[in-house]
């Protein structure tokens, strides 16, 4: 089976785009919007209803025509050329999915390939490939009708349909707005995982700031002003949370933006404290000397494969002889470097400990994450490059 994606993402650029529905003097739905979306990025347009985010999205595939300004996809103005051709090259997913009720899942998915004149065999292969990609068993789902699917399954089919002709750009208008919170979270995670494989450029509209922060490589916060919908701030989510450009953005991202930042960061990105370790059978006296030299007064007992067994404090190491496994106590939570800091913190709070143990995929100790390290993040003066490597290439 061929790799599902051959075409990489496209760049999208809004160049002083304005859309007015009323006369030239009236307020603009979108006023002078300029922003550039790098290829392969998820860019989230977020803002209160009426801020022009959906209008902006629909101008990209020509469903709405801008009053002035240009929108460029890979440098090409979307208003030049045939709008139906343009749309066939852009995946489109909307909140209510809009699957054709009278067509099977397979027929729905191959809508655009059919319009493009692909052969039956190619369409069929592509359909099965996409169903697998979105986590639906082709044999079980191909012949179903949309009415026989759950909300989450419909949304997956909607994504598969949008990806069918391998477009370099996807437009998603509140794609997860109509499913319940548990399904929404799962679909969000699936999309993020999928995006790591397909690396499309995705423009994603939502009114939910948490979704924006979670999904976006870039987040464009839009705001309603007397002049119309304007861009209030555009940048990586971490930047929005750390340095909101205006009171509006600060209020919109919420008072808990410090906590939200924790969910953007991963344990592996934080400075770790090296663990002082010993194995059962090691000399107690020697171990005691080693923790005496370390400001952190605990010894982590590990097995032969460096997997943590438990903590020993100085009292357990009193006397001569060797270290006894039985005296090790109170395991800290084992953290994955891919876990978010927020999850790590929550695990540590649940376990009622100040320190989490970071382990690799084989369970070997990599280091310790302490409350202090997390607290340091929340200091206003914390330096951005420490917080989010890769976010600074804006």
């Amino acid at each position: 089976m061929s790799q599902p994606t051959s075409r990489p993402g496209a760049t999208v650029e809004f160049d002083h785009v304005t859309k007015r529905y009323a006369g030239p003097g009236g307020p603009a739905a979108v006023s002078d919007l300029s922003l550039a979306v790098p290829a392969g990025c998820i860019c989230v347009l977020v803002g209160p209803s009426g801020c022009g985010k959906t209008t902006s999205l629909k101008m990209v595939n020509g469903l709405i025509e801008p009053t002035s300004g240009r929108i460029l996809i890979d440098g090409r103005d979307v208003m030049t050329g045939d709008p139906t051709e343009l749309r066939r090259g852009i995946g489109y997913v909307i909140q209510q999915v809009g699957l054709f009720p009278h067509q099977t899942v397979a027929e729905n998915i191959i809508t655009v390939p059919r319009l493009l004149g692909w052969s039956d065999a190619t369409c069929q292969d592509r359909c099965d490939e996409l169903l697998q990609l979105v986590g639906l068993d082709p044999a079980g789902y191909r012949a179903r009708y949309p009415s026989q699917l759950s909300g989450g399954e419909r949304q997956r089919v909607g994504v598969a349909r949008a990806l069918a002709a391998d477009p370099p750009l996807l437009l998603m208008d509140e794609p997860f707005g109509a499913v319940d919170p548990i399904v929404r979270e799962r679909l969000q995670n699936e999309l993020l995982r999928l995006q790591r494989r397909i690396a499309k450029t995705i423009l994603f509209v939502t009114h939910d700031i948490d979704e924006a922060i979670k999904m976006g490589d870039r987040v464009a916060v839009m705001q309603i002003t007397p002049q119309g919908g304007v861009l209030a701030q555009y940048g990586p989510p971490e930047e929005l949370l750390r340095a909101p450009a205006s009171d509006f953005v600060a209020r919109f991202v919420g008072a808990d933006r410090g906590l939200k930042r924790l969910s953007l960061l991963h344990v592996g990105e934080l400075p770790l404290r090296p663990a002082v370790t010993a194995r059962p059978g090691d000399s107690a006296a020697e171990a005691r000397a080693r923790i005496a030299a370390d400001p952190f007064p605990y010894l982590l007992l590990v097995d032969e494969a460096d997997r943590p067994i438990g903590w020993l404090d100085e009292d357990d190491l009193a006397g001569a002889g060797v270290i006894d496994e039985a005296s090790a106590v109170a395991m800290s939570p084992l953290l994955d470097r891919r876990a978010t800091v927020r999850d790590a913190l929550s695990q540590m709070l649940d376990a009622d400990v100040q320190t989490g143990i970071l382990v690799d995929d084989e369970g070997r100790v990599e280091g310790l994450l302490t409350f202090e390290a997390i607290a340091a993040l929340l200091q206003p003066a914390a330096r951005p490059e420490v917080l989010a490597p890769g976010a600074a290439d804006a």
Partner: protein
Amino acid sequence: MPPMRDGEPLVDWAWIAAHLDDIALRSLQHLWIAFIAVAVGLAISLGLGILVLHRRSLFGPITAVTGVLYTIPSLALFAALIPVTGLSLLTAEIALVSYTLLILVRNIVAGLESVSPEVLEAAEGMGYPRRSLLWRVQLPLAVPLIVAGLRLASVSTIGLVTVAGLLGDAFGGLGVLITEGLQTFFATKVYVGALASIGLALLADVAFVRLQRRLTPWARAQALDATGRAAVVEAA
């Protein structure tokens, strides 16, 4: 009760047995006249429905005109048409077609408008050309309501064909039997004509229900989902 000759049995079974082929022929003619009327009515109504889809403001005038047509008594309409089109099949069909329009236009428009805006938006956003949107999305989705209209129209048309028997025995189908029965005080003919006409109407109705099932497997899937597995077995 139709007028009867004295001493005649209620139903003359011997006459029926002797005229089975005549009855069959009349029934076929009856169906054919009704079929033409409904088919032409459907074609005109589809045209009008699509027109309304593009210019909603036409819906009012179109329903007003078809509504007025619908209220004209059939005999009066025949009387008005005979000077123009004579005692012909055309006269019968013009009248029959006009009676189908109101039902069909309304159902076609309702069917086309029942397609959810999200479906249309998604289709447009994926680059569906306008024309295939109508034929491949809107009309297929309108089928349940269109067929509902066809059922009503065909049942009422089959009933009305009997009246066209007044125009002459070439155009009346089973109506001719009824007319002749009344003129000759022969009740059996009246019964046969009336009952066969009712039978045809019922048959047409069942045929359309089956047709709709064939055309809209997706709607059946929906019904099955709503009522559970028991219904699946029944439908299979």
